[in-house]
């Protein structure tokens, strides 16, 4: 089951997704193939509703495909239940969301601590503080999300994503809710940390400039994936 993944940190083969809609069966993804090598940055560009986020969710094991198979960190997701997939993600997969998704009742530091504690890391606090320091928010460790600006919240989310040293990072429109300048800073940080950590990055975005900074660009149109220049 694990052989087909080869050296790729994430791989999809014949990946398809269909959902039941009011007008009958709707195909969102058509038999996609995709491989992501360790340390590689892949950008997926496409219009709203083209299936980008669905693909991201399937690659990360957040949802199950209708057809095809996915391998993540060397392991096939097909035979795994919800909890098996969660255990696989734990400490190996990082996420950055468009709307940051910080827990509003936890401080910046506690948000960064969360994946470390879920992974059972023995002394998580120095790691979390160091991660916050790397995104320039060491001084804001005790602040709650509502006390931070949008850019700062996304930086906390990036610190949270990198703190457990993941093998692969999934980012869903990470600059979608930010202005151009802040978005630029966040992207610098994201790519800089990715280089330093050697993690792979799968980035879903509308932004061609952001995509241009990745190793590989793929376009998503009507559920099909095609390479872009």
């Amino acid at each position, binding site marked *: 089951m694990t052989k087909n993944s080869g050296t790729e940190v994430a791989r999809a083969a014949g990946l398809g997704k269909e959902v039941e809609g009011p007008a009958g069966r709707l195909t969102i993804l058509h038999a996609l193939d995709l491989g992501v090598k360790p340390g590689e940055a892949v950008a997926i560009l496409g219009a709203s509703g083209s299936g980008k*986020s669905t693909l*991201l*969710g399937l690659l*990360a*094991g*957040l*949802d199950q495909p209708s057809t095809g198979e996915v391998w993540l960190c060397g392991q096939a997701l097909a035979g795994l239940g*919800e*909890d098996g997939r*969660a*255990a*696989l*993600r*734990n*400490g*190996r*997969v990082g*996420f950055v*969301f468009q709307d940051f*998704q910080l*827990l*509003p*009742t*936890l401080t910046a530091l*506690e948000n960064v601590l*969360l*994946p470390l*504690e*879920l*992974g*059972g890391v023995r002394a998580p606090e120095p790691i979390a503080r160091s991660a916050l320091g790397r995104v320039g928010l060491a001084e804001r460790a005790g602040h709650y999300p509502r006390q931070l600006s949008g850019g700062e919240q996304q930086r906390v989310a990036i610190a*949270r994503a990198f703190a457990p040293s993941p093998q692969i990072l999934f980012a*869903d429109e990470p600059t979608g809710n930010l202005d151009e300048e802040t978005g630029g800073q966040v992207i610098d940080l994201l790519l800089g940390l990715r280089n330093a950590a050697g993690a792979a990055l799968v980035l879903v975005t509308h932004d061609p400039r952001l995509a241009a900074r990745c190793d590989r660009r793929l376009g998503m149109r009507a559920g099909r994936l095609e390479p872009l220049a």
Partner: protein
Amino acid sequence: MTAWRLALRLLGRDWRSGELYLLAAALGLTVAAMTAVAAFGDRVESGMQRQGGELIAADLVVDDGYAIPPGFVERARALGLATATTLEFPSVILVGDATQLVQVKAVEAGYPLRGVLRVRSDARGEDAPAPSGPPPGEAWAEARLLPLLGLDDPAGLGAEIALGSTRLRLTQVLTQEPDRGASLIQLAPRLLVNAADIPASGLVTPVSRVRYRLLVAGDPGAVGAFRAWAGVQLPRNAQIIDPEHARPELAGAVAGATRFLRLASLVTLLVAGAAIALASRRLVERQTDAVAVMRCLGAPRHLLTRIFVLRLLALGLGVGLIGAGIGYGAQFGLVALIGDLFAQDLPPPSVAPLFLGLGTGLIALLGFALPPLVQLARVPPLRALRRDLGTPRASVLGSVLAAGLALGLLVWWQAGEAQLAARVLAGVAATLLVLVGAALALIRLAAWVQPRTRGVWRLGLAGLTRRRAAAVLQIAGFGIGVLALLLLAVVRVDLLRAWQAGLPPDAPNRFLINIQPQDLDPLRAFLAGHGLGTPGVLPMIRGRLLRINDHSVDPDAYPDPRAQRLAAREFNLSHAEQPQRDNRVVAGRWWGPGDPADQFSVEEGLARTLGINLGDRLTFWVSGHEVKARVTSLRHVRWDSFNVNFFVVSPPGLLGSEATSHITSLHVPPGAEATMAELQRRFPAVTPLDVDALLGQVRSVMERGAAAVEYVFAFTLVAGLLVMLAGIQATLAQRRGEHAVLRALGARRRDLLAALAVEFTVAGLLAGLLGTACAELTGWMLAGQVFDLDFAFNPSLWALGVLGSAALIGLAGTLASYPLLVRPPLEGLRRGG
């Protein structure tokens, strides 16, 4: 460890963010109500247990309605046992012109044989143990007797009182009487005197209603030997009482009262449970995103479930402890209201009620809050990417089952028996179904009215009808609170009023009992001479029902408690040529001149209760021999006429020769107190019973009982308010978005406020209508089925229930939602509703 650490951290953070306040308030309230009632019961019960063998002031008591044969005392003394005899009877004492009914207890030297009497002789001074009862010539009074006689405490000590024909000096205030508990709630205050003063009083004759008791104490072997001997020699009407047998009656009454209060406090739990369920749902909605992120980050479902359960348990324990502390304090209020009805000088409560309160809180929390919270673990991780996936909902059936199971467990725990628990649960389920059904119908009516209205009315009614489930829950929950409070008002005020209104203005208000044969003619002359008319004076003979046909009457054989009491007690029998005016023969026929004498006429209610039929042969034990006759008629008696009436009457030929005292009832107009004092002086053996004063005492006990129940229901009212707040909070996010859009479209703040006021006032109006209607319906059913009264619907109750509820809920709801209107609309729009 990870689960505990995360659970505690999330709990702490959620607490600081204010998300748990409502859940905590509902839970704390439940625990407080349960702890208060449990601690009260605990104090009363341990107060009784502490008395132990002292409850009967002896190791063994022989109790009889007639003087105990001297052989009993001789035998006890021969066995080396200490003895003391007591006599107890109601009488009226005089101080100047003031008269007061008292419960006299005359005791011999040596009383009490077990336990101690305590007395004091000044108002503030500590009481002190008294080695024995009052010496001859002295009387000791319960503290409440002094003000009733117009005496100050303690300045009134030293006053001379007239007890029958004798004069005694009031010297001490009685603060503790070991065997008082055995007689349960005493309406008349206690007067303790020396038995040596009784013959001179002239109050005790062979036909007087007196309870005689022989107290014995000493070596357990000797007590056992005496019991064996007494068991054989025991006169027919007498009984042997030991501490184990004395207690069940009192323990049963206490258990019954505390069980009732506990079940009443469960209503709080039920209403608070709705608030807990609503608050939990909101918590789930607010935490869905966080859980989705945690799942993305690799948290397995079982870890999340463990975190939620642990977090809930930690919350339950923390809040439960605070609630239990509040309940511990609140029980002092209950004790102040009714504690002294059961026992004097209650010991402090044990810690057991704290655990009971905590346990109740945890069970309620698990039953009402866990089903929605465990759903959180089922949030798909994909929700972090796609908000449109929504929040997983607990199945309605699962939630109802869990809540029902928790409630059933708690009712069974509190009620102590499965059958009562099942009845209570069935009642609760039926009431809920009716309330929810009626609330649903009213909401539908509002939905029909809504399109026909304009402006703020349309907006306000839409707010109510669109969130139908929340509105039904809210209205039903608040309706329960209104029902609970109004029901007490109906029972306490309206039923008493209906009963009093049914009495004619000249209804008898005094009974004269213990009229000796030699006093008959002088008393008639006295009454006529003082303008009090010539009331009928009826003979009264005491007798115990031994057999119905050939079957012995065994109180334990009757399942009905009233039948048990009737079968166990002595009857007052009478004889007459003619039936009384307020009696109506409903079966058989009354005797005429020349008919045989061996006939009984039995009151139909008694006949029904004891299973006596026309033609049955009854055997009574009267003055030491058997009297037998056939039942030849059944009578309907109007007991509420306050005329003297009897369960069983015979022709004069059957009972006319038995030892007889007489009884009468008469109406004494206001201002005739001096005449009554004079009557008491002229006829010291006669005991006048003041019906008004007795009614006043009954009412006072009832009102204190009702106040105690209201005290418990006050928690229910607060729980009702919490349900409302939870309902408002549950819809807060939706309202925020709606208001932001409406204000962006140009709606004025004033209009939105008016729409909110319409929505909540109409909800309050509907809840008030439901609650008041249920309370009146219950009152009407009680009046008709239980008390046989004409029930008048009370307009002021409707005004209070409907308008009060509308005003309260309208105001509270509008105020709670007001902050939504103060915030800039952009904030609501940004949050995406």
